């Protein structure tokens, strides 16, 4: 052993380098919030030591939905149909429940064409990390409003949005998602902690990430511009995530911090700021969303969490092995079964 070892390449707990978590080169605009989210996803999966071969990446259609190509190259990915990623993810997870699935959607992909599937995905609490890269507009088709655009927000061409927005977090809480968060693509620390919590969580993690569109929605009058978001972001508190494979070394003041034990043994420490906020209570969460909304602000952080809620796969009472890999002996009943059915029809 040398006294002065050469600087080793940084590896994670399963001895993979960060390059294993990268994807193809992004084709999105320079400065797009989505690229920052991609970076956080890469970091979170790397730091959590998730084997990319155990990950499924899914998306619908839109700028956001292109991004799964930009992270986790060793993972299988599926760029599916506009607004229909939840169903594809559902099928894939049913086929192989041992995979960790991450779906990336946009505000149009979720709130407009995909609202039906979104609603039922939340209702099922399918084990899936569902990220909305939310910029309030359609990028690929050149800047039309999406259903998350705020009432009165101004488009680049001067048109003012005259419909109220859909609050995807409120919907998700109402419908049954068991981890609901909102974050900002520019808040590196918070988004990383939220993503890690989502990786540790079993059930639907619905994360609405405000992600400004630098090309079509970053101007004066827009409520999804970088400057507007920075001015109106109201973090619920500081989030510290301690994965199950690390010791809890930090001491937290009792009373000011809520501790949540996650499904996989990880811990979330939510240090309260101004208000006494309990993210495990639906009514509190909904009231907080409405109140911040009334003030023209938006709350970010873990808005709601129910770590032990039954998820959809659990409710199906499936065998332990992935359905996709069951051998014929277990999926094709024997001749006696056919004979029995035939006899019943005579």
């Amino acid at each position: 052993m040398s006294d002065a070892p050469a600087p080793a390449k940084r590896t994670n707990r399963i001895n993979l380098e960060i390059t294993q978590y990268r994807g193809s080169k992004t084709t999105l605009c320079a400065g797009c919030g989505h690229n920052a989210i991609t970076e956080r996803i890469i970091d979170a999966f790397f730091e959590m030591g998730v084997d990319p071969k155990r990950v499924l990446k899914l998306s619908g259609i839109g700028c956001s939905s292109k991004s799964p190509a930009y992270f986790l190259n060793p993972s299988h990915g599926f760029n599916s149909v506009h607004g229909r990623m939840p169903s594809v993810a559902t099928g894939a997870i049913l086929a192989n429940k041992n995979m960790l699935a991450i779906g990336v959607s946009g505000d149009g992909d979720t709130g407009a064409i995909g609202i039906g599937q979104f609603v039922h995905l939340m209702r099922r609490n399918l084990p899936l990390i569902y990220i909305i890269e939310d910029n309030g507009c359609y990028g690929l088709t050149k800047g039309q409003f999406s259903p998350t655009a705020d009432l009165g927000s101004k488009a680049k061409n001067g048109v003012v949005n005259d419909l109220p927005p859909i609050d995807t977090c409120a919907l998700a809480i109402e419908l049954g998602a068991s981890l609901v968060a909102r974050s900002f693509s520019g808040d590196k620390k918070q988004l990383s902690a939220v993503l890690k919590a989502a990786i540790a969580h079993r059930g639907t993690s619905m994360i609405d990430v405000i992600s400004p569109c630098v090309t079509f929605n970053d101007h004066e009058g827009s409520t999804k511009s970088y400057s507007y978001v920075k001015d109106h972001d109201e973090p619920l508190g500081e989030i510290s995530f301690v994965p199950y494979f690390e010791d809890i070394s930090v001491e937290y003041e009792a009373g000011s911090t809520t501790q949540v034990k996650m499904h996989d043994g990880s811990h979330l420490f939510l240090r309260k700021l101004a208000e006494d906020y309990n993210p495990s209570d639906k009514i509190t969460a909904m009231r907080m969303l409405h109140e911040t909304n009334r003030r023209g602000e938006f709350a970010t952080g873990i808005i709601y969490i129910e770590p032990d809620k039954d998820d959809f796969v659990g409710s199906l009472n499936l065998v332990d092995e992935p359905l996709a890999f069951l051998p014929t002996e277990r999926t094709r009943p024997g001749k006696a079964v056919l004979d029995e059915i035939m006899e019943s029809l005579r």
Partner: protein
Amino acid sequence: MSVPVTATEPASAGAQSVVLNDFSIQIATVNGSGSQTANLVLLRSLFQMGIPVSGKNLFPSNIAGLPTWFTIRASHRGYVARKKEIDFLVAMNAETAKDDVMSLEPGRAVVYDAPLKLDELRSDLIFYPVPFDKIVAEVCPDAKLRRLVKNMIYDGILAELLSIELAEMEKALSKQLGRKPKAMALNMGALEGGKKYAAEHLTKRDPYKVGRLDKTTGQILVEGNAAAAMGCMFAGVTVVGWYPITPSSSLPETLIGYMRKYRMDKDGKATFAIVQAEDEIAALGMVVGASWAGARSMTSTSGPGISLMSEFSGLAYYAEVPAVVFDIQRVGPSTGLPTRTAQADLLFVAHNSHGDTKQVMLLPASVEECYQMSMDAFDLAERLQTIIYVMSDLDLGMNTWMSQPFKYPEKPLDRGKVLDEAKVRELGASWGRYKDVDGDGIPWRSVPGTNTPAFFTRGSGHNEMAQYTERPDDYVKNLNRLNRKFETAKSIIPQPIVDRDPAAKVGIIAFGSSDFAVGESRDQLREEAGIKTSYLRIRAYPFTANVDEFIRQHDRIYVVEQNRDAQMLKLLLIDGEARHAVKLRSVLHYNGLPIDARSITDGILEQEKDQR
């Protein structure tokens, strides 16, 4: 050995001739009145007496209150298609009774609820008035239960009038109610009460009669949707996404029943996941996701659902994801007549999606084929890495058919070209998800969760290595390979069944549930008009070479189908040899009822007039 005696003409009232084991019975009731038990007992008792039968439920889109008809055909010749003429009417529904009676041919028989006074309508029919309420009051003291057993009385009446053995009716009844002794006793009382009334008060004046035969020995009675459900289970299906729609729902629902019974592991856990989706888009989305992740997956729907599935249908075609989709066809559109049958989704499904899309269709013509082709569909879907549409219909799927018992599958499952570690070593770095290494247009796919290389799945914007591209030459190359794959399909899909008469100038092409009526029509053409015919039954799309050969061998080809627009004929014109166009003629049936032989025969004879 019994030799059936058949009069070719039904006798007029009072005549003594006998029509043995060759007639149709129509029972007209009100939807929701609980007639299904009585109708199935009637059907089953004839079947148990060895007489070939078929049963068709002509029902409204309604839960209760609208008219419904159940038709039973008995045929010593084994004809099981719908018979156009009704020979024996049981008129229980005041609302339709008049129309039902007026539509009968002279000489036919009518059992009716006496207060309806139907005998006043016509003098050329044989009427049997029955005071149902009076009889039911005698056999069922509890007034609340009378509604449930009233229908069983007409079974008793028919047992007496048609000489159906009461013991067989009892056996058939016990098959349905055997576990409920109280209901059994009540219904038997009604059966006997009906029979006794007929024996004491009705004088047999119609010619129809049944006599024991031996033509159903060993056979089963089953609906096509149940047969398809069995096929799916024995094909090893593991993930099902579905959305309720008539006439498809009974397929997944029957499948759920079978799977819960026969596909639970020893520890009580399920080897399957069946999900009722939020709509048909999600149903196929789930199937595509599951198949992509390596599961055997299917959905079942009908025309409106197929419309909603169109976008995923195209994605699966281009991304080359296996899937099995059942289309239990009905007449269109969404708010059309959802409980009436048709074969009218062919053209739509053959090219189901936008862009250049060609879909593989299997065309089952019997319950046995519903079972067999369900298994074939999964093998073909995984072999060809595309959607396989199984095109059944309401008549096949929801009605009751006789069949030889199904055979246990002997072939192992064909899971297609899925990379394993050995294949990865063999192909090495040259593996590309969309690379045609075998010359059949079918690439090797890798499945998530295995120790094989991953790839990114998209529609058509990819090169052989599954990398994103918009290059014109890559796009053309990919489309041409998909065409090669479609050609490969021709050699592995079910081949047509050809019955060629070398002396025949007339050829008939048909498919699916028209088959039984075509067989009967060919007999009529030969026996009544001296016309010999050959017959080719198409069992899958794309068409195989022998379809063109068959057309070449005959002067005139009648394409028989259950739609208005001659959809199969048009597909033949699109894909076949153009010079054949002048030979192709249509016989079309599209009134929502199952096709019958007489309509086919009349349709062919009308056009054959030109040849004389």
